């Protein structure tokens, strides 16, 4: 919303001179935030009225002419290329030497094709007073040569404030509302010219109100003898300063009233209305209408229209129809000033995707009372004055407007909400200034207040308290520390305990990933549907109105976001990349193996009914590493398996890596594994499938490794329990296994461990336990491929450590156990991984 300072000042009594900045601060302090200040026209004091005295051809140029003018001081010859220089005696706008035109264009004397020219005859676009660039400005004949233009049209020199008006203040969508508010703040009296409609004969047939529930009031005024033509300079300049285009006097008048009262008006060409009357009714379903801007609408039975005797002439409060618009030549007019139910206007505007200055204001709520009358009166007076029209009659039909609420304001409540008291006399001054009627004396503990109809936002006590606060000033609030009635932390709810625990876990995982050399990235939670194709059907959650297709589905996996980051890095610099991310993934129904249901988010019965309607959200901690294109660093599946175990270990979780089951199709089939804690899968690790990399335009030959942890599937680490220290040495046995390359070592180790667990034991005999160096009970010493081992196989050298808790063990008893373990394990392996044998 643009506001002219000059216009505002004209409605307020004289006061101390304020700079634009101070003026703006005062407006902002009212909650009408000034977002921009633009000063106009200071360079135009040297633009004056000049009289054309003589026109002669330019000796050297066909399209230029020499114009002798009188600028109030002397005769001057100006070279001019405009086609519309008036006959001698006509008045034009002349920029004297020294004038500064918009764009810091300084006018001087110069030679044009050999002829000395001093100053310039200006068009309105050159002066920044309009958009017309077709010629120079022709001024009224009555204007005296030599008078500075800004003296004749005060709106030329002005400061325009750009205001951000919040939806609760429709009254501030016009200059009157802003001036009223500011007058109270600055303690300057507010005054307006007469705002009553002129007496006119009653024309009850002019308006038929069929929908009193949708239209609270409708003023119709019939005018005749209007001449549609250009607006006077003061009007076109005022609109231009407010960035509205001057169209013709009739349209400009409605725009002027819109800017003044915040009240949208509409003018019909009455001669084009069937039977010259309007009906406020609902459209019939499918009824067609063409708007002023030529959009063809198919109306619904919920749309309120202003129709003539036959068909719709306007979509009420939104836009007029093409057929009944005022065009040059129109002379009989119907002026409409009405109040429509905000929700109805909003629905129609949305349904037909029409957002207009008019619907914007009706949606927020305009006045159905005094200001509606005033707006109609202002418009009519201007139509009479500027377009030569005369009113032949009118009608003011009442519908069912909302009742103006009466609000009880308790002074104690002001203190209760604000934490400060406001003196009674100040409260009275402010509310009265805002046109609130107060019933109650200064001594009363409470007042009954009736709010004006132009403030639909004032409906309850707190709203009036806010009015007092705005005007009394928030700077006066005392510093009162907040003291809870109950010490925080006294009640720990189960939900909060879980939330805190999860937050600690997430913090811990992130710190662990950071310590492991990973850089935390954040990527968008939505992605391109094609990016999720490699992951199969995950019951995706779709965004109905995405910004662009690339952001149209909520991610079911974290990998696409990190791969976009990787591609971005490789394209920019090619360095090694080690990214991690903590984030959520979304699905209507996650597959069973993807981590258990989110604990903290569905924790309460109070919200369970709504929560059941929402998609599922799961937390992920993940990372992606890549050596880059410069070969400075390299990663492999094993290094990343180590990294994911280290991350979990740093949050107190003893994890293992085991064969992937099921296999992830988006990871390399030969380089992937499952990550498990306590037998339950909590994540995956592996090399990203080359087909997936290609999809993200990662250069050929580049490998990337990825791991993800299903945070919701993680328990918290158990409290560590002391176990007796080993006081006696371990004895070890080496074992060389020949196993197919595709069989993971973990399979062999698991078989050996299981066989040992199942073997017969004496109470104090040897058991498979971590070795003296701290190595795992079954330690992988070597993974040999090559000479002596068949193709497709490898020789795995394992070392098994045995010890007893409280005595030394003998070679014989260890050997006996080892033999049992080995033979049983080989038997197991023969079935799960054929081809394994001891060497």
């Amino acid at each position, binding site marked *: 919303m643009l506001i002219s300072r000059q216009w505002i000042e004209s409605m307020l009594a004289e006061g101390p001179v304020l700079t634009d900045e101070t003026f703006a601060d005062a407006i902002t302090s009212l909650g009408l935030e000034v977002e921009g200040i633009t000063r106009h026209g200071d360079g135009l004091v040297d633009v004056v009225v000049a009289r054309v005295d003589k026109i002669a051809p330019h000796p050297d140029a066909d399209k230029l002419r020499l114009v002798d003018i009188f600028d109030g001081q002397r005769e001057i010859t100006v070279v001019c290329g405009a086609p519309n220089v008036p006959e001698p005696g006509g008045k034009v706008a002349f920029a004297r030497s020294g004038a500064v035109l918009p764009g810091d264009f300084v006018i001087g004397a110069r030679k044009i094709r050999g002829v000395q020219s001093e100053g310039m005859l200006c068009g309105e676009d050159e002066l920044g007073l309009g958009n017309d660039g077709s010629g120079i400005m022709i001024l009224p004949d009555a204007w005296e040569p030599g008078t500075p233009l800004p003296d004749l049209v005060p709106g030329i020199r002005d400061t325009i404030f750009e205001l951000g008006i919040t939806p609760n203040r429709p009254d501030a969508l016009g200059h009157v509302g802003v001036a009223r508010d500011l007058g109270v703040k600055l303690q300057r009296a507010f005054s307006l010219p007469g705002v009553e409609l002129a007496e006119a004969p009653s024309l009850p047939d002019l308006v038929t109100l069929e929908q009193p529930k949708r239209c609270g009031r409708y003023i119709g005024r019939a005018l005749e003898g209007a001449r549609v033509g250009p607006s006077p300079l003061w009007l076109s300049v005022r609109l231009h300063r407010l960035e509205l285009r001057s169209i013709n006097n009739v349209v400009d008048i409605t725009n002027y009233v819109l800017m003044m009262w915040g009240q949208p008006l509409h003018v019909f060409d009455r001669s084009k209305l069937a039977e010259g009357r309007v009906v406020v009714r609902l459209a019939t379903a499918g009824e067609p209408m063409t708007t002023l801007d030529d959009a063809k609408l198919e109306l619904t039975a919920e749309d309120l229209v202003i129709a003539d005797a036959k068909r719709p002439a306007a979509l009420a409060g939104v836009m007029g129809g093409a057929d009944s618009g005022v065009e040059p030549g129109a002379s009989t007019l119907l002026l409409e000033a009405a109040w429509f139910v905000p929700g109805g206007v909003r629905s129609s505007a949305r349904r037909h995707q029409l957002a207009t200055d008019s619907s914007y204001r009706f949606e927020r709520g305009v006045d159905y009372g005094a200001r509606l009358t005033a707006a109609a009166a202002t418009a009519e007076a201007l139509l009479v004055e500027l377009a030569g029209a005369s009113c032949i009659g009118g009608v003011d039909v009442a519908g069912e407007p909302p009742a103006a609420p009466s609000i009880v304001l308790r002074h104690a409540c002001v203190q209760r*909400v604000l934490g400060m008291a406001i003196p009674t006399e100040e409260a009275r001054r402010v509310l009265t200034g805002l046109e609130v009627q107060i019933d109650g004396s200064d001594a009363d503990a409470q007042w009954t207040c009736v709010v004006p109809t132009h403030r639909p936002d004032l409906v309850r006590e707190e709203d009036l308290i806010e009015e007092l606060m705005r005007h009394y000033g928030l700077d006066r609030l005392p510093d009162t520390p907040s003291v809870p009635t109950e010490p925080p932390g006294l009640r720990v709810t189960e939900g909060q305990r879980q939330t805190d625990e999860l937050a600690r876990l997430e913090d811990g995982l992130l710190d662990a990933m*950071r310590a492991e050399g990973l850089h935390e990235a*954040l990527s968008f939670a*939505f992605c391109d549907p094609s990016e999720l194709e490699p992951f199969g059907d995950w019951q995706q959650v779709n965004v109905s109105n995405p910004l662009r297709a690339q952001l149209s589905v909520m991610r079911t996996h974290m990998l696409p976001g990190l791969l976009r*980051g990787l591609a*971005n890095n490789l394209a920019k610099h090619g360095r090694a990349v080690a990214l991690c991310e903590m984030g959520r993934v979304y699905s209507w129904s996650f597959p069973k193996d993807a981590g258990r249901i989110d604990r903290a988010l569905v924790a309460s019965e109070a919200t369970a009914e*709504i929560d059941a309607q929402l998609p599922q959200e799961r937390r992920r901690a993940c990372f992606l590493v890549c050596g880059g294109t410069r070969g400075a660093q390299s990663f492999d599946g094993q290094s990343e398996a180590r990294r994911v175990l280290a991350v979990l270990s740093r949050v107190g979780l003893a994890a293992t890596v085991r064969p992937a089951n099921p296999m992830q199709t988006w990871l390399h089939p030969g380089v992937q594994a499952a990550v498990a804690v306590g037998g339950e899968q909590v994540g995956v690790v592996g090399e990203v499938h080359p087909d997936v990399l290609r999809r993200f335009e990662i250069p050929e030959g580049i490998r990337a490794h990825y791991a993800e942890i299903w945070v919701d599937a993680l328990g918290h680490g158990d409290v560590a329990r002391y176990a007796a220290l080993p006081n006696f040495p371990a004895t070890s046995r080496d074992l060389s296994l020949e196993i197919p390359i595709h069989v993971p070592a973990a399979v062999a180790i698991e078989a050996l461990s299981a066989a040992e667990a199942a073997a017969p034991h004496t109470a104090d005999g040897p058991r498979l336990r971590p070795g003296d160096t701290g190595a795992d009970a079954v330690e992988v010493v070597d993974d040999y491929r090559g000479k002596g081992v068949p193709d497709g196989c490898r020789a795995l050298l394992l070392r098994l450590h045995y010890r007893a808790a409280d005595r030394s063990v003998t070679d014989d008893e260890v050997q006996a156990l080892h033999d049992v373990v080995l033979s049983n394990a080989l038997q197991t392996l023969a079935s799960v991984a054929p081809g394994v044998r001891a060497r």
Partner: protein
Amino acid sequence: MLRPVSDDVQEALRAELERFVEAVATVADADALYELQVQFIGKKGSVSKLRGQMGKLAPEDRKAFGMAFNEVKQQIDAGLERRKQELAEADRQADLGRIEDLTMVPGVSQTGSVHPITRTRRELARVFRGLGFDVVDGPHIEHELYNFDKLNIPANHPARDMQDTFFVDGRDGTAGTDANLVLRTHTSPVQIRTMLQRPPPVRVVAMGTVFRKDDDRTHSPMFHQIEGLCVDKNVTMADLKATLYRFVSAFFGSDLKVRLRPSFFPFVEPGAEFDMECPFCPRDEQGNKQSGCSVCKGSEWIELGGSGMVHPKVLDACGIDPEVYTGWAFGFGIDRMATLLHGVPDLRLLFDGDVRFLEQFRC
């Protein structure tokens, strides 16, 4: 010759001693020293063998021989010990002679980094926990009832236009507006959840990801917000301001004033925007501000976010009696706080995962 044997043996002892003295001087390491020890005084060593000849001596010579033997033995022991010390000292010297150039640190540090937004979130959580607030969170995909209706943003009301909303299709593919699901446009639905889930007094902050249909230099379709909520008896606008003041001062570590300006947010009444004194403006030694700076564009104030007294309708909608309890709430953008704090010029840097950007935030 009465005592030839004794003399011979003694002579042999002296010869062994001389041989030992010569040998021990050339021993270069502990192993060789041990060999020497075995060679001379081990069970079958040359000196030990001579001791076996004592039996062949005349009894009267035995004492003298014994004394001579012991003396040689002691000298050899002492020689071995001395040599052992010398070798240890030589080793120590050699070890101390080692030189490593510690200034040649490997170029790439192994430490990762934490995203500036996460850093800021953590710092905010720390400060508000200190002020007695619980940290809570909620789902990113919300029902309109919590994201709008219960926050006094009814359907078909222009207040909904204040936030450009992403809608989400329903489970069965129902178009977004009919499914009543949205990507939460603010963290305020967590206020509603909290008030529904726990009776007053309530003191919480909610932090997290929010979404708005907006994308330009200063707006990202996904960003992060923090929201504070306090509902209790005798809660006023004044202690909202006081709490914001304490938060801002604790967060930036200096005494920064807070300014409230009236504004409108549907879920508060009265509502206000809040600004803080610019912490980046240059100051003199007494800590007095000298001038504006580029961050606050010379205004000496930085706009942070919105705040106000929880609207009675919102309390009502959550089953809290507004005649008994009052509350306040505030909210602001974490991303902006992070960019302010770390001097990040463009929001887009936050989300494109460039490691050259991320690694700048190691600590």
